[in-house]
C-alpha cells in the first residue's frame, strides 16, 4: 500500500485563498486539480497536512475538498478510504469533512 503526504504549507502555499483559479495564485481549484487529484489517483492513501498555513478561507476548503465530490473526481466512500486530513486545529478537519459530506455530484 502506497501512502503520500501533501504538506500544503511547503508544497503549495502558506497563504491559500480563493475558490477558482481566476481568483488568485493559490486557489482551492488549483490545489485540487494540480495536487490533490493527481495524488489521490497515484497513491492508495493520501494524507493532507493542513498545518503551517495561516488559514483557509471557506471558499478554498469547499472548492478543494467539496469539489472532489461535486466535480465527480471521487465518491464520498472513496475519499473516506483514501484520504486523511491532519490539522492541529480540529475546526479545519471538521470543516473539510463537512464540505465533503454536504457535496453533491453536479449533473
Amino acid at each position, binding site marked *: 500500500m502506497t501512502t503520500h503526504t501533501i504538506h500544503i504549507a511547503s508544497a503549495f*502555499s502558506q497563504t491559500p485563498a480563493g475558490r477558482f483559479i481566476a481568483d488568485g495564485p493559490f486557489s482551492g481549484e488549483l490545489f485540487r486539480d494540480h495536487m490533490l487529484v493527481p495524488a489521490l489517483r497515484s497513491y492508495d492513501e493520501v494524507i493532507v497536512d493542513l498545518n503551517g498555513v495561516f*488559514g483557509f478561507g471557506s471558499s478554498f476548503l469547499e472548492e478543494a475538498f467539496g469539489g472532489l465530490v461535486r466535480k465527480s473526481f471521487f465518491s464520498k466512500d472513496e475519499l473516506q478510504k483514501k484520504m486523511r486530513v491532519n490539522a492541529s*486545529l480540529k475546526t479545519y478537519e471538521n470543516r473539510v469533512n463537512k464540505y465533503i459530506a454536504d457535496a453533491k455530484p453536479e449533473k
Partner: protein
Amino acid sequence: MRKPSVESKARELRLSDYVLKRHVRALRQRRSCKRRLHLLKKPKDGKTRIKHVTIVAPNKIIFHGDESVRNTFRQFISDISGKLGSEYRVKIDLSKVELLLPCGVLLLLSQVRGWTLKFPGKLSANYPSDEVVEQMLQSVGILEKLGLPERVTVSREEVTRWYHFKGESADASQMTPFMQVAKERLGEADQSALYDSIVEAITNVTHHAYDDDEQKRWWMFASLTKTEVFVSIYDAGRSIPGTLLEKPGVRDQIKSWCWGKKKRDSRMLHAAMGGKSRTKLCYRGKGLPEMLESTMNMIGSSLAIYSRRGLVLCDSGADREVRTELTEPVDGTLLLWALKTAKD
C-alpha cells in the same frame, strides 16, 4: 421758446428710460457673447485654454463616525470629481490636513487611483504641513500618484504600525508579515480566524463586487496593538445591496423582505451578514458571517459595514446590531473591523 409741459417731459423721460433699458440690455448681451466667444476661442498657440482650480482638503480625512466630518470629506471628493469632469486642472491643497484615519485614507486612495486613470495629468497637489500626515500619504503611495516625490523617511509609530495591502485578486501572500505578527500575538486559533475572514472578504470582492475585471481592486489597512487588531477593507465596486439585487432568485427573496420598508440597504447588509433565519441567503461567501461571529465572540469588539446607503454596526459589548440608512450613498463597500485580543 415755450417750456415743455410736465406731462410731455415725463412722456419724454419714459421714452428715454425705455430706450436706455433696451440699450443696456443690448450692451449686456453683446458683452456676454464676447465673453463666451473669448472662452471658446483657442489661444494663439493653438492649445485649448486650461482652467486651474485649487481645492483645499479638509483637516480631517475621516469617513466613519461623525456625520458632519463625513459630509465635509464627501464634499471635498465630490468637488474634485466635479471640477475634473468639467475639464479643470485640479490642485489639491493638503496643507490643512491634520488627521487621517484608515477609513478616509482607503476612500481617498481609491478616488485618487480613479482620478489619475480617468484624467491623467490633470491632478496635482502640494505637500501636507503635518509630518505624520505626509509620512502616511507617502507610505500608501498617494503623494506619488499626485506627482509629489518622496521626501521624508517613514519613521513615526502612528504610521509604521499600519500594514497596507491592495490587490486585484484573492492573493493573500502579501499579508505574510502581518499574519506572522498576528500569530505571535494572538495565538494560532485567533490568527487563523482572522485570516479566514479576511481572505473570504477579499474573495467576495473578486467574485461579486466588480463587472469589469480591469476595475477590480481592493485596499486594506491592518494594525495590531497589544490589545486590539484593526482591519479595514474597501472596494469601490457595486456594493453588497447592488450585487444582491442582481441575482434573480435572491432579488425576489430580498424584495419580498425589504421592499417598501425603511432602511432597505441596511436590511440587505444584515441579510448578507448571515441573517439567514429570515432570508435563507446561503449563496454568498462566508467572509461577513465569519467576521460577525468572531466579533461577537470577543468582548469589546466591533464591526461596521458601509455599503451603498446601508450602514450596519455590530458591537459585541452591547450584543446588538444597529442598522442605519445613510443620506448619501457610499461608492462600494467599506468594512471596519476591530477585535479585542484575548491578551487584553
